[in-house]
């Protein structure tokens, strides 16, 4: 009787979810390895995509799960990028893991400080405050040109071989594998987190904050905690970008990268974990293609893509895929029902 209920996609997070890794969840990693071996000329683009997936994953954690709306996530990405860059170019710290750790620590500090300040607000106020923070950082980076290179960007970034063994090569092979490993670890962590009681609790805050208070949850502190975790991940993603590019541009801060990231996540599907994988892939490949074909109008194509997704696929590309899968499985299950 219960077996003929409505078709549901497996629930991510919560006490009734199944935390086992499904076979489809290995597909992104298989695809990444296949990409590595078959498309060596695109490894630079591939590395960038991996970094943005990690960045999008960090946004999905706060936006998709905890329901914190932000236009300022680039603050942490940018701070991570500059931390790694300045350490290398100005102070000669070239060890990649040290750079990552320092970037993570700086982003975590900024996350805890700004999170504690702004997470008592909601909705539009929160959105404006997040935007203000990244805009302030943008101006600081712009003015402090002695340290950051200002508008010209920060060059002269060198990264020592990983573990003293693997040099960052011209073709981006090392960079790709390095980013892939970082993303894999980030994915494992986020996945663990959203299936945990903490993840279930975040979903609760997003679903009904008043109810969460009424079961005794210190909502504000929980939000500060998840915001800090997310900021740390974004900082690591920023540092990875610096290491891969061996350059930091001002465009890692401000509204634009935050907005781009939000568009990527909406394209892929918010609050679905793998939306953070699909979005950056589609966005960055479309950007790469459109920028070559129509160098002046490529944003138009991205805009059209976004409009189509928002109008026809509210759950993003993955939401659409879910609907199709459901439509495909429905005739089968009704046939089974009529056979009885």
């Amino acid at each position, binding site marked *: 009787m219960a077996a003929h209920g409505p078709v549901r996609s497996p*629930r991510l*997070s*919560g*006490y*009734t*979810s*199944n*935390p086992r890794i499904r076979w489809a969840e290995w597909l992104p990693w298989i695809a990444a390895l296949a990409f590595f071996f078959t498309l060596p000329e695109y490894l630079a683009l591939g590395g960038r995509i991996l970094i943005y997936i990690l960045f999008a994953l960090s946004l999905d954690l706060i936006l998709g799960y905890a329901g914190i709306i932000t236009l300022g996530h680039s603050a942490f990405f940018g701070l991570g990028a500059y931390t790694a860059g300045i350490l290398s170019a100005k102070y000669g710290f070239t060890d990649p893991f040290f750079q990552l750790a320092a970037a993570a620590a700086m982003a975590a500090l900024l996350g805890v400080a700004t999170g504690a300040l702004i997470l008592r607000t909601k909705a539009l106020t929160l959105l404006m405050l997040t935007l203000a923070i990244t805009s302030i950082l943008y101006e600081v980076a712009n003015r402090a040109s002695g340290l950051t290179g200002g508008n010209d960007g920060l060059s002269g970034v060198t990264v020592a071989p990983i573990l003293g063994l693997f040099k960052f090569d011209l073709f981006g092979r090392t960079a790709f594998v390095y980013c892939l490993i970082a993303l894999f670890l980030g994915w494992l962590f986020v996945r*663990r*987190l959203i*299936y*945990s*009681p*903490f*993840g*279930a*609790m975040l*979903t*609760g805050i997003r*679903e*009904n904050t*008043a*109810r*969460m*208070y*009424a*079961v*005794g*949850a*210190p*909502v504000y502190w*929980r939000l500060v905690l998840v915001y800090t975790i997310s900021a740390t991940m974004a900082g690591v993603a920023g540092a990875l970008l610096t290491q891969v590019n061996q350059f930091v541009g001002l465009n890692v801060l401000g509204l634009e990268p935050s907005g781009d990231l939000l568009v990527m996540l909406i394209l892929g599907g918010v609050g679905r974990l793998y939306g953070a994988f699909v979005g950056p892939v589609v966005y960055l490949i479309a950007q790469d293609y459109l920028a070559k074909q129509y160098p002046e109008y490529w944003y138009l194509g991205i805009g059209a893509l976004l409009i189509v997704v928002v109008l026809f696929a509210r759950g993003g590309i993955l939401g659409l895929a879910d609907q199709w899968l459901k439509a495909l499985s429905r005739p089968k299950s009704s046939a089974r029902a009529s056979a009885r």
Partner: protein
Amino acid sequence: MAESALQTEKLCKSFGALTVADRIDFRLEAGARHALIGPNGAGKTTFVNMLTGVLAPSSGRILLGAQDITRTRQSARVRLGLGRTFQITTLFRSLPVLDNVALGIAEREGAARRMWKPASRHDEIKQEAMALLDTLGVAQDASIAVQDLPYGRQRLVEIAIALGLRPKVLLLDEPAAGVPSQDSGRILEVLAGLPGDIAILIIEHDMDLVFRFAKRITVLVQGQILVEGTPEEIARDQRVRDVYLGEAHA
């Protein structure tokens, strides 16, 4: 005299010139079955909001057991043992019934900060939630999203969440509000079966339910306590009749 479970001393709340709670001295005994009634606009909701910490009182004190909780945050009051249900169902609508209850239990147990072990492998939490749902007769709905349940059952989930917090004091804000009359009997049954050591304050419009459930009744009118007594005393009280007749004629 036994220590009260919940007590207010000269509790006041005014919004500008409008006084909605006027020197309320209220005592809820340990293990009480107490009802708060009053016509619309009497200040019942304001009173509950002050008790739970949603609204800060203008003056006066609130004591939970012997502890002054006047300035304690809402979520901290819950952790101290003050549970509540909402007049308008306040649930995690898209989540399964089991998760609705488990989220509360996890908070009580301090498990909600765990980030590694999957939630679904916290068997002790799930079992406790299932047992609670079973007592309330909604165990068969455990895996259904709350929003797909009939309203009467949603009210039961609301009570299940509150019980999962193992409160010492439970405030039931119109538990039968919006429930079709044929289902309100089920709610009463559930209320009658609640553990005796929980002190319960029920705010309710359904007089039938109030008089069957409560051992003591407080009548609130225009932010003040008009009278308090046993159901028999309240039923006989001329002032109470006037207030309710007055409302009926208005």
